[in-house]
Each structure stands twice: as structure tokens, then as C-alpha cells.
């Protein structure tokens, strides 16, 4: 039995390794943002695998690491779908899986305009211990990071989240604004939030040679995001807000790294959050996977 299990595991390992080595990598093009979405969609048939992690030491609580693994697939030119799998580890407490999210983005206008709207709809099934902090809405804040995992995980958060995304590309600058509305399916009022981001590559033209350290491969930006209360008390009172410079770096093989220190702007915000992530885009994933399995099946 152990031998059989090893054979199966080895075969799966070879296939996964083969996929990552044989399939062409593309530059992941979402820019350096962690929270703000632009109107750029995933190319049809491509799969982007990415991690978005955040770490912090909230005042009065334990240090934590929240992590989300993202699988983003381009279904159509106008439709991108993503699955997130979330987990977290808190020092002096525990590490746990906190749930999943499934999001879909739809481009509204078929052509490029000064401002380009995108509709975003997400279903999330996470628990209260989730610390991936992929958005800040309502009165989310420091208190959410202080409870013990065993208590927090009892709270179920089955929510529908909608975003209205506007973004523009102007002379090399990416400017994006997101308006967020979130509703727990069972109870609680609508919660609102926002995210705004601006970024620019260090060089607009590409160099002729393949390179990892060219200025064109670096993007600098800044994000501001926070909560806007609920429909009962819409506004800035008791809400948390963050200012986060961001840096993105793409290697010649398409692997992209991002890092973003975030600074809390209000008393209810965590003082400091450090976000970091890596992404790799696999071109024409579906077709290449079929070919890979096809060629394996064709062997005598």
C-alpha cells in the first residue's frame, strides 16, 4: 500500500512539476496592488497562481500571518473567475484553515475608455478567524485581530460582496477606484468600504534584451483603503483606514513579487501591516494541460 501511495504521489508530483516547467510563463499584469482591482482581466485560458500574505503585530494581540492562495482563470475576455483558499497562523495560538472565496469579475464595456467599469461579485465562506484582510469594510479594525482563534472560528461569515471597479491607464499611470458593499447572508447590515490605488512602472519602454533587473520590470504605487461603516451609520466614524506604498517586481520568466507596508491611519486600525506575495501566470493552461495528459496517454 505505501508503495502504491508513493507511485501515485510521485506521478502527481511529476505532472505538477511538468506543468510549471513546460508551460510558458507570462507576466502577471495586475500591477503592484494587493487590495485595489483594476479593469485588467485575466487572458482567456490563462491561469494565475498567486499568494497574498499579510503579517502584523496588533497592539494588545499576538503576531499573525494571514495567507490567501489565489487561482485566477480567464474564462472569456470579459469574464475572470478566481478561487481563494485562506488560512492563518497566530503566534502563541494556532494555525488554521479559515475558508474560501469565489469571485467573478465582468467587464462592462467591450472597448477601452478613459474610465473603465468592471462589476465584481464574490461569495465568501470564511470564519471569524480569517486574517487575510483582502478588503476592509464596515467597522473592520484592530479588534478583529485580537481574539483567540478557537473563539473567532465559531463565527461563520457567509457573505456576498459586490464591488464596482473603475480604472484608467493614463500615460503609463494606472489609476483605480473600488467601491465595496458586503452583506452577511444570514444577518447584519450592509457594510461598505473603498480602495484607491495609483501605480506606474519605473520605465515605460521595454529594453531589447531579456532581463530581470530592467526598470520596466519594477512598478511603484500606493494604495489607500478602508471601511465606510454600514447602511445604518455610513461614514468614517469608528472605521479603519490604511495607507500602503507598494512595490512590484517581475522576473524575466514572468514570476512576480510584490511587497507593501501598510500604515494604519486611525485609532481603530492596526498600526502596521506588511503584505507580500508572489504570482506566476501559466499561459493557455487548459490547452497545455490537455496536451500534457494527451501526450502521456499516447505513450506505449
Amino acid at each position, binding site marked *: 500500500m505505501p508503495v502504491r501511495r508513493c507511485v501515485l504521489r510521485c506521478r502527481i508530483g511529476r505532472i505538477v512539476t511538468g506543468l510549471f516547467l513546460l508551460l510558458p510563463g507570462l507576466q502577471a*499584469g495586475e500591477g503592484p496592488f494587493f487590495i485595489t482591482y483594476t479593469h*485588467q482581466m485575466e487572458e482567456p485560458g490563462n491561469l494565475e497562481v498567486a499568494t497574498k500574505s499579510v503579517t502584523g503585530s496588533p497592539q494588545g494581540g499576538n503576531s499573525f500571518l494571514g495567507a490567501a492562495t489565489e487561482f485566477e482563470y480567464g474564462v472569456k475576455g470579459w469574464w475572470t473567475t478566481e478561487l481563494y483558499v485562506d488560512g492563518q497562523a497566530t503566534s502563541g495560538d494556532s494555525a488554521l484553515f479559515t475558508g474560501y472565496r469565489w469571485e467573478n469579475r465582468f467587464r462592462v464595456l467591450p472597448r477601452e475608455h478613459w474610465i473603465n467599469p468592471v462589476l465584481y461579485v464574490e461569495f465568501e465562506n470564511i470564519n471569524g478567524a480569517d486574517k487575510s484582510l483582502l478588503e476592509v469594510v464596515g467597522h473592520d479594525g484592530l479588534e478583529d485581530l485580537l481574539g483567540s482563534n478557537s473563539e473567532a472560528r465559531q463565527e461563520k461569515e457567509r457573505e456576498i460582496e459586490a464591488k464596482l471597479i473603475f480604472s484608467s491607464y493614463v500615460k503609463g499611470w494606472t489609476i483605480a477606484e473600488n467601491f465595496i458593499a458586503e452583506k452577511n447572508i444570514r444577518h447584519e447590515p450592509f457594510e461598505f468600504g473603498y480602495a484607491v490605488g495609483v501605480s506606474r512602472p519605473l520605465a*515605460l519602454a521595454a529594453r531589447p534584451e531579456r532581463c530581470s533587473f530592467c526598470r520596466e520590470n519594477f512598478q511603484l504605487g500606493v494604495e489607500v483603503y478602508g471601511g465606510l461603516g454600514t447602511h445604518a451609520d455610513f461614514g468614517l466614524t469608528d472605521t479603519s483606514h490604511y495607507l500602503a506604498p507598494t512595490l512590484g517586481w517581475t522576473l524575466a520568466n514572468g514570476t512576480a513579487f510584490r511587497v507593501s507596508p501598510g500604515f494604519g491611519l486611525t485609532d481603530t486600525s492596526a498600526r502596521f501591516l506588511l503584505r507580500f506575495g508572489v504570482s506566476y501566470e501559466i499561459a493557455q493552461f487548459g490547452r497545455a494541460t490537455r496536451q500534457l495528459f494527451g501526450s502521456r496517454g499516447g505513450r506505449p
Partner: protein
Amino acid sequence: MRKLLLAASVLALVSSSARAESPIHHAPTQAAALANPLEGSEQAQRAGAKLFARECSACHGPGGAGSGKAPALNRAEVSNAPPGTLFWVLRNGSLFRGMPSFAHLPEPQRWQIVTYLRSLRPGATTIEPRP
């Protein structure tokens, strides 16, 4: 009844040919007037080859030779198209036909790709990116 069938067939034919039509034909005429600021630059052509390999060749094949996913680009319709028209296609794509928009690339990079595209000829040796 026969007239109705004929009209339906013509409509189906027109709509299927419209679906197969290249996005180049959808570019507005004023787009063609836009000049490529990098026209004739070998540096731009090489940079364009690098960008093409990264952004386009997964669908259009290496050197624009085509693939099952998207048509070949090493044909006269593309190399003879006005640079401004190609630039328009790169910016807007054709979202409902599977061609994504490349507006996220800065303008100079899109012009570099246009410079490379216009150098493609069927069977010709093309400039490839420097290693």
C-alpha cells in the same frame, strides 16, 4: 417560406463572417492616422519581439506563426496595416472574440509590439529578442 429560409441563411452567413472578421477591420479610420513614433527603430523591433514572446506568442504562436487558439500574424493583412490600426487593436482587443486588451502595457511598449508586428512576413526570418 423559401424566401424566409434564404433570408435566414444570408443572415447566418453574414453573422458568421462578421464573427470571423479580424479586429483590424473594426478599428476606426481615424486610428490609422496615428503615426508610430518608433517606426523603423531596430531597438524597438527587438524590444517588441521580446514583448511579443511574453504577451502574445502563447496564443498567436512563436513569431506570430499562429496556433489553434488564435490566427497567424505573419501575414500581409497585419504587416501592411497602418501602425495606428494595430495600436488600436492592442489597446482595445476584441473581448467578445477572445482577444484581450493590452491597454495595461504602457504606450511605448505597445508601439514596440506594433513595430515588431509590421516586420513579420510569412516564412521570413524575424528578429528575436536578445538573450
